[in-house]
């Protein structure tokens, strides 16, 4: 539900970078979103297009890559993807903080980011 606000921050960030180097137009923006955030790529995309209108960002491609969540376990030193549990009656798999190796509760170290990684622009 906060994709619009996030897209506004994104466009502001891109415009700031574009203004630094008197850019004619921005052609591509690369964004990495952690899969443990509640940001929907589709809504982000439509908000981005809307906010970019009338700016040098208009018409640029927003390329979103989803980052897998990573947990780290203090108990056994495991670092890697989250454990999941599923049930035949559910349509999706539910992530769990339970360490896949030792069962202790692990902490999230990646998967909550919404990172601008690259901006391609024409000068």
């Amino acid at each position, binding site marked *: *539900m*906060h994709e619009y606000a*996030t897209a506004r*921050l*994104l466009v502001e*960030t891109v415009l700031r*970078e574009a203004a630094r*180097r008197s*850019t004619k137009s921005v*052609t591509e923006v690369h964004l990495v979103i952690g899969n*443990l*955030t*509640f*940001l929907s790529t589709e809504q982000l995309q439509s908000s981005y297009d809307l906010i970019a209108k009338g700016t040098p960002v208009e018409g640029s491609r927003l390329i979103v890559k989803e980052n897998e969540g990573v947990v780290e376990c203090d108990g056994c030193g495991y670092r890697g993807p989250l454990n999941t*549990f599923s*049930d035949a009656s*559910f349509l999706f798999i*539910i*992530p*769990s*903080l*339970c360490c896949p190796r030792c*069962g*202790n*509760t692990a902490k*999230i170290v990646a998967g*909550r*980011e*919404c*990172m*601008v*990684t*690259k*901006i*391609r*622009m*024409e*000068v």
Partner: protein
Amino acid sequence: MSERRRKIVEAEPTEIYDVELEEDLLQANRDLAEENRRLLARCGVEAIDIMGCIGSGKTTLIHQLVGQLKGRRRIAVFKGDLTTTIDTDIIARHGVETVQINTGKECHLDANLVRKALAKIDLGSIDLLLIENVGNLICPADFQLGAEKRLVVISVTEGPYMVVKHSRIFMDADTVVINKLDLAEAMKVDADRLEEDVKHVNSNATVVKAICRDGVGINTVIESLGV
């Protein structure tokens, strides 16, 4: 962001520039939350972020917590809502300090709104801050406020799948209250199953089954929060 983290690949003039960044758009809120956390710690205030769906019983829980704790703790309550002061008026009857945070249209509190509310109270005069988030189990998961502990309230009237459908919010929870236990049978909802689901997602969370309206389980919530 610092200049040294900015890597720039320069193309031929009048061609294309690639600017490489590592700028996290959600970081601004995390930084503000960290500032709030430090400010609260400096003033010796324990803060608890209370989240849950609309109608899950967040306000009733706070009403009961304040009733039990006001004799021995100096409490303030922040209440996040889209609009109205209905809930703060209920809590203010206890004689504790309240700040209503009306978000207008936003579906969650964020660290900036909490910072503004913190400026409205004398932090030296309190030692416990209860922050009721806007009724929503989705967006608050992405927005830390700077509270030391996070509590999630669900109720059996929301059905049997609240945890599995909103698992991410339970990952950060220290305490999960399963409310309206007296209605479980009528709702045909198995509260033990809800507890199991919470434990699957986050085995560190303490689960308390409660009937907040009647004060049942409130002492266990207080114990689990260590307040």
